[in-house]
């Protein structure tokens, strides 16, 4: 079976869960004999050799579309670009122009390639998917890793992005949602028939990048970690407010924020205002190896997301034997039992649970052992098989 896949980011040049998910899924699909042509925007600086390092030889072929925008922008990069433009509006249109250019280039690739199924990841690729479907009359699968409602926390939804998502969803043959939560949002906010949507929960890659080591920071302090884009969606503000409450009770704790994003200045100022700057450390955007090290260094991982369609970082934390406190407003909380669950706005409860984990050793140990055991079920073969099932159903329908 041949799949034409449209994506927007791919490790090691990725900024978030989308790239991680695409990589894990394609790797596992290819292992199962699926041939994949992965269409991807890339900046001129990235060479073929860079890709060859990460792509397992064999069934995966990368087709690149040169793009003036760097595809793996963090929110901060975003902001810098906005600043250089005369007004944010102009910037907005240029991003969408860029997406349109990608769509046209993708259409050309679709004409050249042979495939049985089209599989698109998130809104930027939906236009390309629809064109490919029109050209070759093959079934179109949309994989929704996040909706505009998640990215914006429900505020200031970008109408253009929403329309693009909605149009894509209504013109697809099947939608894959990364959680029941996301499925429900697609039904409620985009008016899609629930029967058209399959839920395929994400997984985690178990290849070992680094090993246990002694961290200087841990000599006197325990470490509580936030890892993700510093944006409204991820709830970094709730993390800092919780840090303040915890520090009123427990002295030897450091709070590490790893990631970058448009809320970073606000969070830095907030930490100063709360008088905890010496206890809140900003690690910036981390590469893959450092991400693993951060999990290993941490005693507790906190994911206070306002709206998290899945939340692969939780699986990554558990894989590194770090107990997790997870927002109930997340897909991962549907499937992981051995973590602590909180409402993202409930700063008292987040703090209560952080302190409990710091104080009660048996709690930490039980969560660590059971979480590590549980996360092993989440390897990429499971979602890959579910995707293949979706492919087969569509193909047999003709």
């Amino acid at each position, binding site marked *: 079976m041949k799949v034409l896949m449209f994506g927007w980011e791919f490790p090691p040049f990725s900024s978030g869960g989308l790239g991680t998910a695409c990589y894990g899924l394609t790797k596992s699909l290819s292992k199962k004999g699926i041939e994949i042509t992965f269409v991807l925007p890339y900046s001129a600086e990235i060479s073929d050799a860079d890709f060859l390092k990460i792509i397992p030889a064999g069934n995966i072929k990368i087709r690149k579309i040169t793009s003036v925008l760097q595809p793996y922008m963090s929110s901060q990069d975003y902001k810098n670009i906005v600043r250089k433009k005369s007004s944010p509006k102009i910037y907005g249109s240029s991003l969408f122009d860029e997406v349109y250019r990608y769509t046209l280039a993708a259409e050309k690739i679709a004409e050249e390639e042979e495939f049985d199924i089209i599989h698109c990841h998130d809104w930027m690729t939906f236009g390309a998917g629809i064109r490919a479907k029109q050209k070759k009359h093959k079934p179109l699968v949309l994989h929704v890793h996040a909706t505009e409602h998640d990215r914006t926390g429900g505020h200031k939804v970008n109408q253009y992005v929403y329309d693009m998502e909605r149009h894509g969803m209504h013109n697809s043959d099947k939608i894959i949602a990364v959680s029941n939560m996301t499925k429900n949002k697609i039904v409620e906010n985009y008016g899609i028939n629930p029967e058209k949507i399959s839920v395929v929960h994400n997984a985690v890659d178990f290849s070992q990048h680094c090993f246990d080591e002694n961290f200087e920071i841990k000599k006197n302090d325990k470490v509580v970690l936030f890892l993700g884009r510093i944006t409204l969606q991820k709830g970094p503000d709730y993390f800092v407010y919780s840090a303040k*409450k915890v520090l009123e*009770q427990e002295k030897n704790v450091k709070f590490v924020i790893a990631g970058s994003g448009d809320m970073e200045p606000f969070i830095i100022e907030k930490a100063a205002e709360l008088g905890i700057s010496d206890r809140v450390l900003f690690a910036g955007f981390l590469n893959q190896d450092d991400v693993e090290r951060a999990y290993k260094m941490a005693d507790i991982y906190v994911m206070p997301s306002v709206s998290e369609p899945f939340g692969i970082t939780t699986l990554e934390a558990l894989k590194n034997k770090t107990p997790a406190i997870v927002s109930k407003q997340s897909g991962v909380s549907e499937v992981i*039992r*051995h973590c*602590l*669950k909180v409402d993202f706005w409930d700063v*008292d*409860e987040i*703090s*209560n*649970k952080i*302190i*409990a984990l710091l*104080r*009660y*050793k*048996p*709690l930490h*140990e*039980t*969560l660590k052992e*059971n979480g590590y055991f*549980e996360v092993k079920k989440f390897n990429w073969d499971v979602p890959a098989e579910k995707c293949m099932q979706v492919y087969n159903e569509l193909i047999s329908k003709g």
Partner: protein
Amino acid sequence: MVSVCFYFQVHQPLRLRRYSVFEIGHNNNYFDENKNEAIIRKVAHKSYLPTNKIILDLISNTDGKFKVAYSMTGIVLEQLEKYAPEVIDSFKKLVETGCVEMLDETYHHTLSFLYSKEEFKEQVEMHNKKIRQLFNFKPKVFRNTELVYNNDIAGFVEKMGYNGILAEGADHILGWRSPNFLYRPNGLNKIKLLLKNYRLSDDIAFRFSEKGWQEHPLTATKYASWISKINGNGNLVNLFMDYETFGEHQWEDKGIFEFLKHLPFEILKHEDNDFVTPSEAIKKYQTVAELDFPHYVSWADVERDLSAWLGNKMQQEALRDIYVLEQSVKSSRNPTMIEEWRKLQTSDHFYYMCTKWFNDGDVHKYFNPYDSPYEAFIAYMNILNDFRIKASSLSAVRLVE
């Protein structure tokens, strides 16, 4: 001859509040009074009151041939006295028939035998006193919390003057033997051992409404025929179960009350069958053998061991931590403190922390007021920390005096 011996467990824990770490040192209020009240009222109306009425009618309609035994914890009695006193009255009426035996257990439904024999003894004596006061009945047969049993418990309880004790008829203890006889605990002569026939008990308690079960629907006639079949292979069938089986675990609309109403008559149709209380069984039958229980056995889960309460590190630590306080709490001679400490020993608090079945979610989840065993542990440990502060300030006061 087959004698059927029914024993029903009546217990409702005092559930704890979701006590936060920020309340430590500021809040004395550990128990979720509203939830406990709502649950006890619900269970009283769905289960205790209608079932008591059926049992009372059965006793009178069989001219006293139908008999049952109850073990009621002090914790549930206190809650009933407070929120549903009509239930206490209906139990009094049952005891007055002379066809109902009351058993003894630890007042607070605890695992105290594992940690402090002295504390265990005090709790059993408290319970004995409570049953005498309320029902004018002096229990002579003992059942331990969750049927936790081993040789030592039997020996200890015999010394306390009991002539019977109840235990799970666990396969790994019985081996080829049948639970349908009276036994002797290892090395003891006075006290007799009654073993639960878990297959027949669970047919009612767990499988009654289960559609996938090949015997579903279970009729009184069918069940009575299983009892009669034991004739020749045993003489005593011990059917032990939670009283909430009737109307709470198995719902009225599934026919559990109708089943109960008909069962005694169906069983008595066979002239070799009758009903006995545990004390009557002990008088009526000879023991057939001595049974060795070197390790703890309980009636919980498929393992029939202590793992439902002591299976993980959280449970082990929480239990250790509460019992470590015994000396300081008792030396305070403060009745409120001692009572609060005992209420924190109730085994349900530790059951809620069980992670054993957490992967599949089942019976544990049904009984768990918390979203997860971790939540249960956090609330418990926060409360315990507050309690510890209170205990140490009290003993400091005593030192000053």
